[in-house]
């Protein structure tokens, strides 16, 4: 592991299909030709002892060094590569009539609990599958697998977010069935996932009432791209100081008119409205 930033040369991204829901890996009947080369992801920190000469004097504009140079205008979007892969995911999902939702929140907002409950309540009506994103462990995939849904765990290692490339790998292994609902549970993080399009049909940001109501203002990049905000754990409202009205007002400063559903994934409040929203997404696809 790189001692400076914590990134690791060998603990790259791992995609794991849970045995109970589907044996083996990669029996996908579709051909994503993503062609990405994972070999290069683990940029070689091995001999990278941070002994660079920080004093390199490129800034001095000394014109004596070697051959003349050419300035080439590129004008490439920094996120172009991810966006291109996301677009491929989106096309594949559309061809297979799969509605994909990117679920994002801080850690502990209740994403996995909400998914367990949703799949148990809705699975018979709407086939569901899940891509689970976490830095480490298969714990969440095991919880989802226990509901009977197909699930693939994506462990990002040092990574703090899912990107379109990881989702493409996950899709290849998961092979969600035609006409199904795909939940992509992003790594719990309100910052980094915001910038990465995964090819999803909609973004759902989940807050819980044990957090601060001002989070939409503090993490505007996340909330400004939300297609839906869920406020979870409302069964705890009597015990916490959380102003739902203020939170919704802040969320709508980030994203005017964003729909908000108050839910309790454990007690069941508001879930019928959430399921109606999901049915509408599937119906509209």
């Amino acid at each position, binding site marked *: 592991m790189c001692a400076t930033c914590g990134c690791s040369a060998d603990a790259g991204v791992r995609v794991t299909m849970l045995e109970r829901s589907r044996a083996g890996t990669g029996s996908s009947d579709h051909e994503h030709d993503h062609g990405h080369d994972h070999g290069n992801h683990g940029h070689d920190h091995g001999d990278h002892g941070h002994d660079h000469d920080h004093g390199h004097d*490129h800034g001095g504009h000394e014109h004596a060094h070697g051959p003349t140079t050419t300035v080439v205008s590129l004008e490439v979007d920094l996120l172009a590569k991810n966006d291109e892969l996301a677009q491929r995911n989106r096309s594949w999902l559309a061809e297979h009539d799969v509605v994909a939702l990117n679920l994002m929140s801080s850690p502990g907002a209740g994403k996995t609990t909400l998914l367990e409950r949703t799949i148990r309540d809705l699975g018979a009506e709407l086939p569901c599958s899940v891509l689970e994103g976490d830095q480490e462990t298969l714990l969440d995939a095991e919880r989802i697998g226990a509901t009977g849904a197909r699930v693939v765990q994506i462990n990002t290692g040092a990574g703090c977010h899912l990107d379109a490339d990881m989702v493409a790998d996950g899709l290849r292994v998961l092979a969600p069935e035609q006409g199904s609902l795909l939940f992509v549970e992003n790594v719990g993080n309100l910052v980094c996932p915001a*910038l990465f399009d995964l090819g999803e049909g909609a973004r759902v940001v989940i807050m819980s009432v044990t957090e601060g109501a001002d989070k939409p203002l503090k993490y505007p990049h996340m909330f400004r791209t939300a297609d839906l905000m869920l406020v979870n754990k409302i069964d705890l409202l009597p015990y916490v100081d959380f102003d739902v009205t203020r939170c919704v007002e802040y969320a709508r400063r980030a994203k005017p008119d964003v729909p908000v559903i108050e839910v309790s994934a454990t007690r069941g409040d508001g879930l019928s409205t959430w399921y109606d929203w999901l049915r509408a997404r599937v119906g509209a696809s």
Partner: protein
Amino acid sequence: MHELSITQSVVTAITQRMGDVPVRRVRLEIGRLSGLVPDSVRFCFELVTAGTSCEGALLEIDEPAGRAHCRTCDADFDTTEVLPLCDCGSADVATLGGTELRIKEVEVTETCVPPADVRPTPGSG
């Protein structure tokens, strides 16, 4: 630390387009409202360029300021906020600038044969 993977993709994009030609300078545009921290990109750049044709390249980052337009009173104004409020009190504000995230240009040694889709301009080396 999403800057790490984004900086990695910058270097990949440059090496894919420019081949093995040594890159002397890279100029990026990272708007002040873009959600990317330039200092983190500088830090990551040194890490991810090691062993690539961008190793040792000078990294220049332009940081365009945030610019916004109020839909309520029609005023244009500078802002440092991702969710700006207009002086008139309105939050119905469109962001006009500051969200840029682009690789503007690279400076390479002259032996390079630029790909067909890029425009060479006179060198400053």
